[in-house]
């Protein structure tokens, strides 16, 4: 959610039950403003909160002019001091995929994972158990990256692409209509498209190149991993991800208000196919 409209956004996203306490809100308002100034971001988003056992991580993201460029992620334990996280690499993701369980809440905590590695010693080949240490910071980075790639969404029409390349915020976006807001195809993944080129030519002919340049949610696997609901007596449409429980996207139809927030334990729901 945009740091500029933090209070309203938190209010709208509160249907999932998790929000922020007033003291956190107050400190966020101030500190995110300073982050924007210091790092010269165009927009600062409050990404959400990852619940750990000892402490919680508060995550923010900064965007530059081009909305689809890789975002910079910052984390904080107390909503006042923010530290920049390194960008996620494939290696990091692969490494932390073996770690399961809750986050500790301490960024320097190291998970130990025993791996069997073949070691050549002279002529003998035997397997040795090597304990690999994975830092919690690495795990945090990869989890945030995975969540972003999988479930960060924006409504159709909120961004538009110019022929020169960069993606801009559409200032004339007035919100989706009620009938559109209930369809999954009106929401896009907030990332570089991967499925777009797989569409048939017929489908591509119907697309508008300046607005439909990202993947829509329609073809997400598994099917049914999004829950669309109207709340507040039909005045708010809320999408919740069932794959990463804790991600809430809200949008008030016919207005400019939209945003998403993740408040959860940072674990993927691998049991989803059993639960549908």
């Amino acid at each position: 959610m945009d740091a500029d409209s933090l209070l309203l956004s938190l209010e709208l996203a509160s249907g999932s039950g998790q929000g922020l306490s007033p003291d956190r809100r107050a400190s966020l308002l101030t500190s995110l403003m300073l982050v924007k100034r210091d790092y010269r971001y165009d927009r600062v988003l409050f990404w959400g909160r990852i619940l750990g056992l000892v402490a919680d991580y508060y995550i923010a993201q900064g965007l530059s002019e081009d909305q689809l460029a890789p975002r910079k992620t910052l984390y904080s334990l107390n909503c006042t001091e923010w530290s920049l996280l390194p960008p996620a690499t494939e290696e990091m993701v692969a490494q932390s995929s073996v770690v399961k369980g809750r986050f500790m809440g301490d960024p320097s905590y190291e998970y130990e994972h025993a791996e069997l590695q073949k070691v050549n010693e002279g002529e003998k080949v035997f397997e040795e158990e090597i304990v690999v240490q994975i830092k919690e910071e690495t795990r945090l980075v990869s989890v945030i990256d995975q969540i972003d790639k999988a479930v960060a969404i924006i409504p159709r029409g909120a961004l538009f692409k110019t022929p020169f390349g960069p993606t801009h915020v559409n200032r004339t976006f007035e919100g989706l209509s009620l009938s559109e807001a209930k369809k999954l195809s009106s929401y896009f993944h907030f990332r570089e498209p991967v499925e777009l080129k797989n569409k048939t030519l017929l489908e591509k002919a119907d697309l508008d190149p300046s607005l439909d340049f990202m993947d829509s949610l329609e073809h997400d696997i598994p099917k049914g991993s999004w829950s669309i609901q109207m709340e507040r007596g039909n005045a708010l449409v809320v999408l919740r991800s069932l794959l990463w429980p804790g991600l809430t996207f809200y949008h008030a139809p016919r207005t400019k208000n939209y945003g998403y927030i993740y408040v959860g334990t940072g674990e993927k729901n691998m049991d989803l196919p059993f639960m549908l």
Partner: protein
Amino acid sequence: MPQAFQAEEARLGGMEYPSVNTGFPSEFQPQPYSDESRMQVAELTTSLMLQRLQQGQSSLFQQLDPTFQEPPVNPLGQFNLYQTDQFSEGAQHGPYIRDDPALQFLPSELGFPHYSAQVPEPEPLELAVQNAKAYLLQTSINCDLSLYEHLVNLLTKILNQRPEDPLSVLESLNRTTQWEWFHPKLDTLRDDPEMQPTYKMAEKQKALFTRSAGGAEGEQEMEEEVGETPVPNIMETAFYFEQAGVGLSSDESFRIFLAMKQLVEQQPIHTCRFWGKILGIKRSYLVAEVEFREGEEEAEEEEVEEMTEGGEVMEAHGEEEGEEDEENVVDIVPKPVWKPPPVIPKEESRSGANKYLYFVCNEPGLPWTRLPHVTPAQIVNARKIKKFFTGYLDTPVVSYPPFPGNEANYLRAQIARISAATQVSPLGFYQFSEEEGDEEEEGGAGRDSYEENPDFEGIPVLELVDSMANWVHHTQHILPQGRCTWVNPLQKTEEEEDLGEEEEKADEGPEEVEQEVGPPLLTPLSEDAEIMHLAPWTTRLSCSLCPQYSVAVVRSNLWPGAYAYASGKKFENIYIGWGHKYSPESFNPALPAPIQQEYPSGPEIMEMSDPTVEEEQALKAAQEQALGATEEEEEGEEEEEGEETDD
């Protein structure tokens, strides 16, 4: 270019930009011809525009801005229509200069000749301009909007709204203007069809806000109402939970309060509490935990259809023998020895897992529905499956092992589990009522009643956060059997003795069933089992910056979404979540039962294979021979069919 334009228009059918404009499209309703003065102004503006066009496109937008102060650009629209009419009459003039867009930019004098009755012969350059304008004004079969009109709309919009840096939003504005032309705002006579459900919901919620039908708003009414009401102070609870960062927004909480007030008025309720919210795929549930007044026994108990007995199909030999006596077979099909496992009776109302009654509704304003009591079979099955709620109470729960009930029962079972596991209170808030008898005497069943401790002083917040021993469970733990108090399933009731087969009990499996024991009531949380080296509870202070005024918050790691707060003498529990337990490993569904065994062959029953056709024919031939020889009795050859029992 025109093709792209039209293609865009054709595609516009899928999207809609609501027009938040200053009534711009309404000006395009057909209007009567205006007076001369406006027309002249309009002419002037158009001529200036065309002049700029000729001087170069880019300069047009920039120079237009300073030129136009007053009057507002509305007359352009009217003039536009006027123009269209003129041109549609087909000005068939003499020799044309080629209608080449490049020729548009020839310099010429001021704009159009004044329209009077006689149109003088236009000069070639003027003709070129007119042609250019005619080209711009042409419309196609697909749409009525010409480029000229569209540009006029666009410029009008820009001048009205004066966005910052218009060039950068030009494309968006372009698109929006086109949209608005094709999607004018609905007039005031018709209701917006899309907003109908919203308005209906709003009406329902408005009904919440009106005072209950009770009478005038006199002083006496006020006094009566200020008395004790079973509705809890939800706003206060919501405030404290907000300090912890949990809970719904304050207006939602207020609506829930009103909805509970409505519930209290409709049902004979003694105490009630907002239990929490369970999220579902299509809709969510708001759950209220109530206790009826003494003696108001629910007659609706009988309405709830009894779950089929023998729903526990996980048993290996669960099968129902079809006793087919249809065929007049001489042999009697042996009766099956299998008996369905005894059904564990559900707990009485107001005790154990059924201590409270639960009402659910999807949104405040909608009617409350009562959930049926939970049976042990449902709890046992609910532990084995993991399903999302859809939001509709009558959805069947499709799972393996099959759940005995529909979503309402599943919801009730999960509520029971969550309540049993996560309802906590500070140590000392509740105490056992003073009765004789130790706990051991009761055979481990423990006490099941508690009362509020009037001398409770409150535990300092810091201590509550530090140690889990300061919190206790005040709901009974549910045993593996599915109940809170253990019941021996093999105890024969009178009914069973009548129905039971004559065989001795010794044939049935082991009779010794161990009594199940669970932790007694008011056990501190420090005794809770760990989840794979993970503490089952996390405590926090709500605000580390001001510990004097903060609240102690306890969060369950076993049931994510269950929170409890305590501050001074107050405490409360709430659950907001999906309704599932957390487990660090993935969910393993129950495996299907092993393959059933066939009936063992024994002396009385033996399975033989059917004879083949050749054998039968050979036999038949032999028989005929024998018949021909003796003509005596015929052997019923149906002995081939051995007795096979159904499996």
